[in-house]
């Protein structure tokens, strides 16, 4: 089965890299799914969960990451997800995110609320 190479990089580190058969991310004009052989693409990401269906040497499975802003670029079967902040779902501390959500709600801080919400959705898998 065809596969594409994915690099998920945050500003200060490489978060994940490997092979995948499908990557779903949220751009400013809606969700976009990229499969191997997609047309070269460069898009602006909105904060939201990114789903990567891994395949090949990375093993079959799903990797979900919370991505806060950034870009998606695909060319030559290589997909890069650039984000200022990116966290894999298993790196996220659910309780902390829940607390952050509560706090953001009480402070009426929309940006923080959205960040915490994206984190929680990445963990629970509810998009």
């Amino acid at each position, binding site marked *: 089965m065809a596969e594409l190479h994915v*690099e998920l*990089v*945050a*500003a*200060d*580190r*490489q978060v994940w890299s490997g092979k995948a058969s499908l990557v779903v991310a949220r*751009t*400013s*004009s809606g969700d*976009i799914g990229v499969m191997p052989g997609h*047309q*070269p*693409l*460069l*898009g*602006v990401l909105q904060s939201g969960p990114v789903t990567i269906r891994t395949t090949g040497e990375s093993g079959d499975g799903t990797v979900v990451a919370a991505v806060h802003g*950034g*870009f*998606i*670029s695909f*060319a*030559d079967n290589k997909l*890069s997800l*650039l984000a*200022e902040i990116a966290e894999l779902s298993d790196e996220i501390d659910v309780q902390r995110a829940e607390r952050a959500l509560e706090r953001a709600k009480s402070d009426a801080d929309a940006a923080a609320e959205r960040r915490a919400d994206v984190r929680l959705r990445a963990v629970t898998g509810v998009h």
Partner: protein
Amino acid sequence: MGAQLRVYKRRIRSVTATKKITKAMEMIAASRVVKAQRQVAASTPYASELTRAVTAVATGSNTQHPLTTEAEKPTRAALLLITSDRGLAGGYSSNVIKAAEQLTERLRAEGKEVDAYIVGRKGVSYYSFRERTFVESWTGFTDSPTYADAKTVAAPLIEAVQKDTAEGGVDELHIVYTEFLSMMTQTALDNRLLPLSLDEAKAEGESKGEILPLFDFEPSAEDVLDALLPRYVESRIYNALLQAAASKHAATRRAMKSATDNAEELIKSLSRLANAARQADITQEISEIVGGSAALADATAGSD
């Protein structure tokens, strides 16, 4: 113990204490250089992917953007100077300040006003001591900068670039920092960040033998470029901050190493002097005893 000897002993003790301190500082700086280098390496994937994306937009579309077009008559330039918060780093801060001075002069000669933005207490005190004005300054994070720090520094700069020159905006953005080449070599250099020279980016892509594909932009080339360029500036500033931090630690390590070496040298020559003084004391004592006994012997011989 003779007075001379006591003075030498005291000086040796004090130099030994200083040596211990400089040795400790040297070792701390050495471990921090490694950490800073690791941070530079960790930020490289993001920076290189971002550069690739910028190049892709630059070559793939004919978009005109305020951040990429050169003003016809540039009248004001912003200068971001990256120094350190603390000294004890040899010529580190003065070198980078000197580079900034040269750039300022060059820009003035080209008929541009220079707005200074400063990172690090050393640069701030240099400017305020000479009563020069600067637009904004940041301190407190030069030892280990984070991406959030780079964002706070970049925000007013990007804003200034996007504003019209007549309303206090700037046409160009220059950055002066110390590049970390190796443990032994760090050079202060200036770099024009904006307007981005796309030809350079293009040439870079082509020299690697890469033919960039025709991208499909989502939502549009203008919007992508709009979002991309501020991130690009932030990532470049982040990289400069990290390199400056690594250079600062390397400079501290070198300065402290030579201080330790000097202290060692001083201790060596002081203990030589102390040994000579002790020997002189002993010699004097012997000659006093011999002289005394001879005088006694003479006295007894005379009384007989």
